[in-house]
């Protein structure tokens, strides 16, 4: 654990060369460190997302959360979230481009060890699964209760044209999945479906499913927070990243 860190909002180059805001935290150490891109949940680029970035830095990872709704602003993060929803949200192509930009920023830092993982929550969980299939340079991906990986017909749109489950064959890095058994999106049947698809394509994955937890149970500022399950889930995440991202 590294208690010293620097953390701030910075500008990075995202999809299409756009400069977007991102929240970045870097542990203060002379050692090389692995890195993680954090994909925020549907409520937006909120305070809890930034807590996640600092938590990862505390555990020795340079971490960055790109503001995936940046282009729907400017404005307060919650107003920008509402504007993003009113306009259909970011396209999958934009999220891929922003994640690639965030990963490139992380790799360019002097302390980077070259390994980059991704983690996403809620809609960001779906995106993290997609990033594992779309960005071959990523080294590990964590999907926390990503909804709509198994897409319904109404989920398909010009912005999100391909069901993420259909991208599984292209997954190029190990995947960790964290799910609550009381969640309705994804529900247990959908998680089973995803697991069947991963097995079918011979992908490296591990799933952890928690009783007594629903959607978003890591989020300490929400009623769905489940401390016992969240503490264990974070341990699983950190063991997974230590295995795939730490190099010394």
């Amino acid at each position, binding site marked *: 654990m590294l208690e010293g860190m620097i953390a701030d909002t910075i500008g990075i180059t995202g999809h299409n060369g756009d400069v977007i805001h991102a929240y970045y935290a870097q542990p203060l150490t002379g050692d090389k460190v692995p890195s993680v891109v954090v994909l925020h949940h549907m409520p937006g680029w909120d305070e809890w997302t930034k807590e996640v970035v600092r938590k990862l830095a505390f555990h020795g990872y340079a971490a960055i959360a790109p503001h995936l709704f940046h282009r729907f602003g400017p404005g307060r993060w*919650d107003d920008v979230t509402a504007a993003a929803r009113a306009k259909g949200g970011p396209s999958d192509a934009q999220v891929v481009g922003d994640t690639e930009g965030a990963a490139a920023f992380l790799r360019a830092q002097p302390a980077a060890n070259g390994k980059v993982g991704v983690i996403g929550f809620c809609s960001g969980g779906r995106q993290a699964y997609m990033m594992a299939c779309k960005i071959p340079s990523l080294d590990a991906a964590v999907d926390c209760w990503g909804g709509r990986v198994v897409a319904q017909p109404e989920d398909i749109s010009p912005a999100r044209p391909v069901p993420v489950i259909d991208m599984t064959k292209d997954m190029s890095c190990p995947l960790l999945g964290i799910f609550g058994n009381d969640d309705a999106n994804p529900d247990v049947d959908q998680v089973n479906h995803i697991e069947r698809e991963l097995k079918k394509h011979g992908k490296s994955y591990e799933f952890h499913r928690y009783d007594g937890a*629903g959607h978003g149970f890591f989020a300490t500022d929400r*009623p769905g927070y489940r401390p016992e399950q969240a503490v264990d889930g974070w341990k699983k995440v950190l063991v997974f990243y230590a295995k795939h991202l730490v190099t010394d």
Partner: protein
Amino acid sequence: MCSYITERATIMGHGKGVAEWLPLTKANVYYDHPVSAPLDHALIIDFTNEAAGPGARVAVELSAESARHLVRAIQAALDTGQAAHDLVDVVNA
């Protein structure tokens, strides 16, 4: 009408205001994760003026049951004779 008749709904939720009166042009209605209300999911209404930017927004996040109370109260208020008389399409007029 000048009647003081008011339909009241007991609700549970959070709201976000603005400093001054605001012309409104759209209402975005959805049931999803709220930003502020202590609920897993909420019926959310964003009354907006998109031309004035994302901050030009009056927002409410209501529990599902609260939202149903509100729907009933709105319907009851609109069922008065005066409301029926005034029910013209001012949005598209």
